[in-house]
């Protein structure tokens, strides 16, 4: 039973949502909106599980004095700091002068921007290490990348400035983007959509079921 009920729920819900796409009549026309609301609420409840798990792991590390347990104290301290800042001020926690906003601006924001920007370095090292003209495919990839990289910055047209307009690097880049690039994107898009439809069907039909758990 523990296994059958979830499968049944998935199947029925899935079929109802597929059908609702074609039925404008109440209540089917409301279903996707409802789902979005419900999902938001479930997410809010589930984060309790996540947060508790994080705290559990951190406190276990501290209690058992595992390697780097000191950092777990930092994790817990900053976690509670943010929680207190977010809940002590009530619903206006996002106002311009709150502790929450201060923490956001001077810790959260610089950290996430930096982590994001660290990508530039990894892009560089990956380019250096991995982009090799190993075979025809890799060479095509490199070629297209070269033209786009140079053709999409001003320096590209500086180099080919002697060419007539319409034959400069930026134009070539434009052509790559408009034709072969778009063709590839379309093939990938159509393929992805088909894969998605088939996976959805398998989930609804209960062929993929391991993610709903076993018998106990």
């Amino acid at each position, binding site marked *: 039973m523990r296994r059958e009920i979830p499968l049944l729920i998935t199947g029925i819900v899935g079929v109802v949502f597929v059908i609702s796409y074609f039925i404008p009549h109440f209540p089917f026309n409301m279903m996707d909106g409802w789902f979005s609301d*419900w999902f938001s609420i479930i997410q809010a409840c589930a984060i309790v599980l996540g947060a508790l798990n994080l705290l559990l792991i951190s406190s276990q590390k501290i209690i058992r004095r595992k390697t780097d347990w000191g950092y777990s104290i930092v994790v817990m301290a900053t976690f*509670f700091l943010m929680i207190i800042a977010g809940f002590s001020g009530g619903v206006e926690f996002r106002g311009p002068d709150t502790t929450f906003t201060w923490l956001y601006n001077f810790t959260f924001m610089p950290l996430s921007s930096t982590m994001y920007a660290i990508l530039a370095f990894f892009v560089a090292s990956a380019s250096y290490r991995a982009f090799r003209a190993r075979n025809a495919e890799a060479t095509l990839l490199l070629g297209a990348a070269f033209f786009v990289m140079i053709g999409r910055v001003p320096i590209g047209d500086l180099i080919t400035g002697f060419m007539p307009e319409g034959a400069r690097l930026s134009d070539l880049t434009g052509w790559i983007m408009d034709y072969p690039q778009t063709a*590839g994107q379309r093939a990938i898009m159509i393929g992805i959509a088909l894969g998605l*439809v088939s996976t959805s069907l398998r989930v609804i039909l209960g062929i993929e079921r391991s993610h709903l758990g076993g018998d106990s």
Partner: protein
Amino acid sequence: MDHFGIWLAAFLTLGIYSFLYRDNAWYKLSESIFIGISAGYWVVILFWDNFYAKFWLQRQDDPMLWVGAALGFLMLLRLIPKIGWIARWPLAFIDGATAGLWGMNFLASNIMVQTKATIMPLMGPAFSGSIGDLLSNLVLVGGTFCGLIYFFFSKEHKGAFGNAARVGIWTIMITFGAMFGYTVMSRMSLLIGRIDFLFRDWLGLLK
């Protein structure tokens, strides 16, 4: 100007960058602060934006919201080991709804619209287009077609079929190359923004 704040931000920024050199205590400290702060941030945000704004404020106007609350409650039963398996119900619900909704959306927007968009004349009306247009359009149509062949699972990539698949993977590789170029562009811009923060906003060395 908030002196402490800006130094803290710079301290954390450089702490993350120090990972490029190697894993070290400064990075571990920045990482831990990041994990703690962001986990707390999301708890706060999900509570106020999702639970409070979507459910609590509107619970009287829209009785259907109680279904969501009930599913959320079932989710929390995970915490009680004996009946934790009930949490599979809301998960099963989410799976079903996701599968049902996304399948149709993608079928409509990706398969149908993009197939239709690829149905195009190879030349302008009454041969108004140039040879260049013809070739370009051939690339677009042929590339899409061969790309689809590449993804075909039911046939080994051999013979004429294999050649078409090879043209397909070439097209896809050009696509990836172009995306690679754009990604480089994007990532460099982000780093420029960050370095601008360090040298302009923090140290004031940039004009």
